[in-house]
């Protein structure tokens, strides 16, 4: 259902970046693997199914072997959180980073590791960083996992710092990614502080369907989970300054950890009341319209791969994904020939003459 919902919306520009292995904004691990298999259009649904399954099955990391009634509530809190429902089937890096957060939060509860196990944790940390830059926000969790291990400090520095150093090295090989980060950083400069606060709080409560978000944060503060709060704080600051709706899923693993601390304090009748509230709140989630301009426009074009389509106006990478022909960008100095034209802005008669 989650994959089907996202598939109905179609590929968005950020998803197209990963499916087409476009070298920004994120490091190459996940997008390279996706691009190897993205050629047939039907693979889109398979990827969505994979991402949705990964997020849904992540619930097992939160459940205890005992206390089955509580497990049902925790599972419901995860599966009925707004961001999980709205994003689980999206082909984005945020769900993958959320999954990394789930794993690190689970590892944080383990008491002891062998060095071999810690090496595997370090490799997972390396992979998380090379999937998405935002995984760096999970650094407090990783630091504490290794700090508690009592390895010599120099080994801890290598296991934690080595992957970060490799990420910095990778970033230097990709000046376009650096430039796009700087562009994004300045993008929201005109938005006032209070508007940013409003957007942030809206996303904060939406991501946890109101109830999970509120109880999660109260639970984290009540249980004095400072490491988790520190990582959550980093994520919150990041989301505040570089706001995107799909970052909401990064909050949810922390909400669930907080809820696990808070739920035992409530009476069973209140807990079940929360469960029913979650079920009711689902209908108020802002589900996206099931239309996609690029997909709907290009569905009937039968241009060969060596042909050119000129797009007038601002457009995203989903046009490159859905088109078999080459997508060209119109500008005042553009003089090349083209075989078809798409007018997202007003097209001059000169451009339209003799074209379809």
């Amino acid at each position: 259902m989650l994959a089907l919902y996202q598939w109905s919306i179609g590929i968005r520009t950020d998803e197209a970046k990963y499916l087409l292995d476009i070298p920004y904004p994120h490091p190459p691990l996940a997008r390279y693997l996706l691009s190897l298999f993205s050629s047939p259009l039907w693979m889109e649904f398979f990827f969505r199914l994979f991402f949705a399954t990964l997020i849904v099955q992540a619930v097992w990391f939160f459940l205890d072997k005992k206390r089955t009634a509580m497990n049902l509530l925790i599972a419901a809190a995860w599966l009925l959180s707004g961001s999980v429902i709205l994003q689980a089937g999206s082909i984005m890096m945020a769900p993958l980073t959320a999954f990394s957060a789930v794993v690190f939060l689970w590892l944080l509860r383990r008491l002891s590791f062998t060095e071999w196990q810690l090496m595997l944790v370090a490799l997972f940390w390396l992979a998380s960083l090379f999937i998405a830059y935002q995984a760096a926000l999970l650094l407090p969790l990783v630091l504490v996992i290794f700090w508690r291990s009592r390895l010599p400090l120099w080994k801890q520095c290598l296991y934690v710092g080595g992957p970060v150093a490799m990420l910095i090295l990778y970033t230097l090989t990709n000046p376009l990614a650096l430039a796009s980060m700087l562009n994004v950083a300045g993008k929201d400069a005109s938005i006032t502080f209070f508007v940013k606060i409003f957007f942030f709080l809206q996303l904060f409560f939406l991501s946890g369907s109101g109830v999970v978000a509120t109880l999660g944060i109260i639970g984290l503060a009540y249980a004095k989970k400072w490491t988790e709060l520190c990582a959550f704080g980093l994520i919150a600051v990041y989301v505040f300054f570089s706001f995107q709706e799909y970052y909401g899923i990064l909050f949810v693993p922390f909400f669930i950890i907080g809820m696990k601390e808070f739920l035992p304090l409530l009476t069973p009748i209140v807990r079940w009341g929360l469960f029913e509230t979650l079920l009711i709140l689902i209908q108020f989630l802002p589900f996206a319209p099931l239309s996609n301009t690029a997909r709907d426009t290009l569905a009937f074009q039968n241009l060969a791969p060596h042909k050119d389509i000129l797009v007038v106006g601002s457009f995203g990478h989903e046009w490159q994904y859905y088109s078999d022909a080459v997508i060209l960008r119109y500008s005042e100095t553009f003089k090349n020939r083209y075989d078809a034209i798409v007018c997202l802005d007003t097209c001059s008669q000169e451009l339209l003459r003799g074209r379809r």
Partner: protein
Amino acid sequence: MTFEQIRRQPLKIFLFVLFLIALVLVPKVIRLWPLYLFSALRQDVQHELTALADERGWILSDLSIKHVTHDSVRFIHRNHGRVVRDSACYDIALADSSLTPCEK
């Protein structure tokens, strides 16, 4: 080295993985290093690539900078898409903005 010996040295395995990654990345960084050191060169490269992309209708993310010197920029142009297409290598001379094909 036996499997048992390898299994007892997790740090060496980890460092080997980092070494392999660095082996791939460091030469690329060296070829792009002037771009980070000289802001004037950075602006020239940005101007040349933007102007070229505007002239040919290219999307900037289809360009991948491979080598930068004070005289020229080498980049690869590849139309991203589900259909696999050949990429093309070009050199831009910063002095006169001339474009010449190169071998990848």
